[in-house]
């Protein structure tokens, strides 16, 4: 269980991340589901503006890990610090963290009883106490950013999967988070819709958002990620630049995994 250290100093991305601080610090994080250990002593930092793609077989704990980062799961041991706020049972800390961390789910999880606009304005209005008109204006900006302003008055069920996922991204962005978590955002999509979602994510990455993406889209990982992280059996096995990963991975388990999916 060796961890490849000192990866973010890779020359290619040196300038972009040169003077950025750690925005996510996870130290020795454990998570148990009953007798099953889902996360085993995971230590990982993410710097501001960094794009991290997490890979790993199903059940390897990669989703569990990012769900711990906004407290959809509670970690059992270790520390998680987001933007200098420690994740603990203090409700104010939790709310502060949740409003800084946006999340996009595999199953979109749009609210089916609200229109597209209603989905996006809900958070700004109810959590940020933004006036309705302002929230709607903000929502339209983000809908334009993800390329579907004309769908504002429709209901989620009337949209295609790709459109729904783009609305979900707009919904998360409307809270103006500093970090975006993506939990297999394209796994539930028909093949022809994957690209439109990845394009939006690529644009987001270019704009300087800090992103952690759990995905099986190797093209996206290779092209967009600053760093790849490989999870297996709840542990962080190996991390490094895309180049390192695809050309000379060190760990046997990483090689095995990559040989199966590439």
């Amino acid at each position, binding site marked *: 269980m060796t961890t490849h250290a000192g990866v973010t100093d890779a020359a290619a991305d040196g300038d972009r991340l040169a003077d950025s601080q750690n925005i996510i610090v996870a130290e020795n994080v454990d998570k148990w589901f009953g007798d099953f250990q889902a996360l085993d002593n995971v230590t990982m930092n993410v710097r501001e503006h960094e794009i991290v793609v997490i890979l790993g077989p199903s059940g390897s704990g990669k989703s569990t890990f990012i769900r711990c980062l*906004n*407290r*959809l799961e509670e970690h059992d041991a270790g520390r998680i610090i987001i933007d200098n706020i420690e994740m603990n049972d203090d409700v104010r800390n939790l*709310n502060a963290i*949740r*409003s800084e*961390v*946006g*999340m996009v*789910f595999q*199953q979109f*999880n*749009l*609210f*089916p*009883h609200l*229109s597209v606009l209603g989905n996006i304005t*809900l*958070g700004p209005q*109810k*959590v940020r106490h933004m006036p309705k008109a302002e929230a709607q204006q903000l929502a339209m900006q983000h809908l334009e950013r993800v390329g579907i302003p004309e769908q504002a008055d*429709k*209901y*989620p*069920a*009337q949209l295609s999967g790709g459109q729904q996922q783009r609305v*979900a991204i707009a*919904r*998360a962005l409307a*809270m103006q988070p500093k970090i975006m978590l993506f939990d297999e955002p394209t796994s539930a999509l028909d093949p022809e819709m994957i690209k439109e979602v990845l394009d939006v994510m690529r644009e987001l990455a270019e704009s300087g958002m800090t992103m952690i993406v759990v995905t099986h889209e190797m093209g996206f990982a290779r092209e967009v990620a600053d760093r790849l992280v490989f999870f297996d059996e709840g542990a962080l096995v190996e991390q490094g630049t895309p180049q390192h990963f695809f050309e000379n991975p060190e760990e046997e388990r990483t090689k095995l995994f990559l040989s199966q999916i590439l």
Partner: protein
Amino acid sequence: MADMPMQQPPGRIILPPHRERARRPFSVRAREWVRRNLFPSTGGTLLTIAAAVVLGLLLIGVLWFVFIDANWRIITVNRWLLFAGGFPREEAWRLWVGMGFVFLLIGLTYGTWSSFGRRDHLFVAVSGVFVVFIMAHGGTAIWSSVWFLLAVGVMYLAYALTARIPRELGPIRTLQQRVVGGLLIASLPLALVILLSGGASVRQLDGFVLNLVLAPVGIVGGLVIGIPLAIGRASTMKTISWTCTAYIEVVRGAPLLGWLFVALFILDDVIGGELIVRAMVVMAVFTAAYMAESIRGALQALPRGQFEAAHAVGLSRMQALRLIIMPQALRISIPPIVGQAIAIWKDTTLVTIILPLRELKGNADSAIAQREFIDDRIEAYIFVAVVFWAVAFMMSRISQRIERTLGVGER
């Protein structure tokens, strides 16, 4: 005409305009239908004839009874007894105003969120004729028909006014929804105030009026208690979920009749007060247990992702429940909730068992006990049955309408 030279956006599929399919003449289609459905084979033909004979005899029997054999005087003579029983005569206008208020609400609600269809008009017309027929038959009480027709008029007026307001979202539409919604929420207390703010005591609610008061109290009270119960039972905090589970299981463990006896004997010592108020409390408490289970089912049917997305957006637990979870859960549970509502509507007859409360069915029994009408038991019960059926049918129609109206954008 057929070829429209419009520049189409690339990648969009334009379907050809809908073409009216050629139809065969009605007579041909009718003959075809009859042959296929009524006389497909020798056996089928025999069945059709047998069914026609049975149905025909039944119809003749019913018509014979309704129009020739039956003595409807038991209803017309006792109409006040059946309608309001011991409610003070001098306060009767409050009943009519109350009825007008309910009809006003129906009109406003349909005008705001739905629309009257041909079947709704038919239902109003048939029940109107029914009421006027009963009222006019006795001779003197022409005024009740006038009041009833006035109430129907109020309903159509309210409908016409609200249906005119455009449905597009805007400040006026929002105001309209708020006002009508607020009136609906306040309607039950308001109606009770209309009925009881004068000289009439709550004890004097009687006959059909008592059914009409008890059922909404049971339904609304059941929802008000049942929603927190359902949420509580699903809670992760053990004390809360056990308390709610215990409530539900204990209440469901005995029939409503049993709880009404509790209201009659035990609650008398515990909380005292009017028997009818205790009966109302029991109806609400009883219905709540069933409502809670229906809603809990819906809560469990909601995908976990809805909670997670609500939290990820930053909503607190209460906000998530109020804005995301409950609206969806209540929508899913409309059919079972309406089932409960119809059950409780019919169960209002059970209060007759605990004297001295008399509702429609109980007063029908009193009417039968009059020497003059001793032979007219069937007429009285048929009348009661028709009235109960009409209200239950109306509830089920309204629930279908609500489901369809809310169905927009459903998964």
